[in-house]
């Protein structure tokens, strides 16, 4: 059995939905953060797969960009989460509704 691009797509879709569910259902900021990473990597997977299928380097180039951005995001995001946790002693996002209009 050959692994057609469809499989990659399916896997990536599954990963993406898992990540999405994590964001919508979990309350812990850290876990939500991991879910975001999962979604990003799901997309990366499609990029790489599609790039290979279309014999184009563009997919992989895009992945590099996503990875760089994700790394930056991790740095900033984790720092914020840690700072918030230190001050508020909680990582639950429902308690952090400071932006209510």
């Amino acid at each position, binding site marked *: 059995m050959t692994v057609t691009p469809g499989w990659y797509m399916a896997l990536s879709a599954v990963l993406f939905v898992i990540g*999405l569910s994590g*964001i*919508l*259902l979990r*309350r812990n*900021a850290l876990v*939500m953060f991991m879910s975001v990473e999962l979604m990003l990597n799901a997309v990366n997977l499609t990029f790489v797969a599609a790039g290979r299928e279309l014999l184009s380097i563009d997919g992989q180039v895009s992945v590099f960009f996503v990875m760089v951005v994700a790394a930056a995001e991790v740095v900033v995001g984790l720092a914020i989460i840690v700072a918030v946790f230190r001050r508020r002693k909680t990582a639950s*996002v*429902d308690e*952090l*509704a*400071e*932006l*209510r*209009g």
Partner: protein
Amino acid sequence: MTGTLVSLAILLPLGGSVVLLFAGKRLPEPLAGVIATLTVAGAFGCAAVAAVDFLTGAGEALTVRWFDWMPAFGVDASLGWDRLSALMTLVVTGVGALIHLYSIGYMKGDARFGRFFTYLNLFIASMLILVLADNFAMLFVGWELVGLCSYLLISFWFERETAAAAGKKAFIVNRVGDVGFIVALMVVFAHFGSFRFDTVFESAPEVLTTGTATAIGLLLLVGAAGKSAQLPLYVWLPDAMEGPTPVSALIHAATMVTAGVYMVARTGAIFGMAPIAAGTVAVVGAATALYAATIAVAQTDIKRVLAYSTISQLGYMFMGVGAAAYVAGVFHLMTHSFFKALLFLGAGSVIHGMHGEQDMAKMGGLRRKMPATFATMTIAWLAISGIPPLAGFWSKDEILGTVFERGGAWTVLWGVGLLTALLTAFYMTRMMWLTFFGEPRWDDGVHPHESPAVMTIPLLALAGLSVVGGLVNTPFRTTLEHFLDPVFDAVRLAHVPTGSTAVALAGASVIAALIGIGLAALRYRDRVPDETGFAWRLMGRGYYVDDVYGQVFARSGKLAAAWLAFRFDARGIDGAVEGMGALTRKTGGWLRPIQTGFVRTSAAGVVLGAVALLGWFLWRGGL
């Protein structure tokens, strides 16, 4: 050589003004005045030496180029030295030097003694720029700068609110006239492509239609009426008497206010092509002459009598230049500057001796206390009244004669002029009697005294000029006319009557003057009549014209401006702007509840949005 001298005539007073501006406070009192006087006397000397060539007949008009000024208009900062500007320069610096000298005594002890001479020197320099300009743009520069000096000097004692207000009023009313001048400059440049006098006047006959020439003439008249205090822009001059008296003598009698007359004479080539404009100049002049004379009759303040008298006499000059009697107009300008400066300085001497009193009701009997002042003012009084052979007679008579000679409707103007001559003699006699004759009516504690020599010497000099000044141009010896001939060469001049007509006209003038003097002498000989009736009050207040202006322009103008600023601008335009801001804010308020602040609500929103977009794309026919 001549060019250098002409430049020096301006640079001397200008330099004096700059020096005094920075050093005036540190110099001991009389020194600042002495320096200022010397610079003006030096300027007179330069001008006199430069003018000698004209007298010998060898002199040529010449242009002194200073520097390239506004290239796009092809105009240099340059001076034109011809016979007319030479005459004006001599009058300005000559009378100016005498008044500078007088001011040393008059301003003695003033806290801003040095500053006074700074301004006075600056004025002389500005006035010389005006009369020496060789193009319209430079003329305008001088025109505005003398306005500045007038403003500074009227409000010299700025601690007095009335003085400050008078200075501002003078500047603003003059600016109203200047709008006419500026628009005239626009038309001139659009048609000639040049501001230079020689270019404009030479090509005027080919370039200008009668209509355009009339438009330029009328616009120039607006400017001249502002500067020379003619109807309807005369209202600033009586108020300008708030300034120190030497200023009234120099600026508001002898020199600056005659700038309008000078300008009309200078632009004679244009007025010559525009009979309607020239006629308007004459009519405005005649109307102003009569109108101001009637007001002068009812003044109680000695300086205001002279102020209205000045307006009236300027009216004569306008009548003259309007009738194309340019030599006569300039002649009267010159003689008037002698005797009117003398009258003002004499009045200043009286005020000085009376400790600042200006109300003639509180004077009387001063002739014994102030003999020199009395004697010199008597000469000026007779000169302005038109008694031969004093200066005023010859010049006034020449104007009236020329106007009469033109015939037709001009005869009416002649009649107005004659009536004005009668009134002039009347109010001047009234002033002399109330001041110098009769019993003393001084306030307690006032001890009149004669002024010091530094003040009486200029009086004597001006009195001498008032006696002989008229002899330069009599029907027997037309020296001035010959002198100015080259200037008005290209301009059609009106004719002076000759023979028996001349004698008859002169006789009529003298009789009018004698009637005026006689009536006033009878009326004021032994008493001060009650002059509080309605007609007297009406004339005393100048027919309430100034009050009407105040209501119409100042008061309602301010109301309109306030409406525009605080209603239309603040509520209307800015209201619309702020309203848009408020609307945005309100809309934001309505949408606020959507933002709950819960991260997962926001995330759900993002997901829903993404799904909706995806659905839309699929429904529209695939990705």
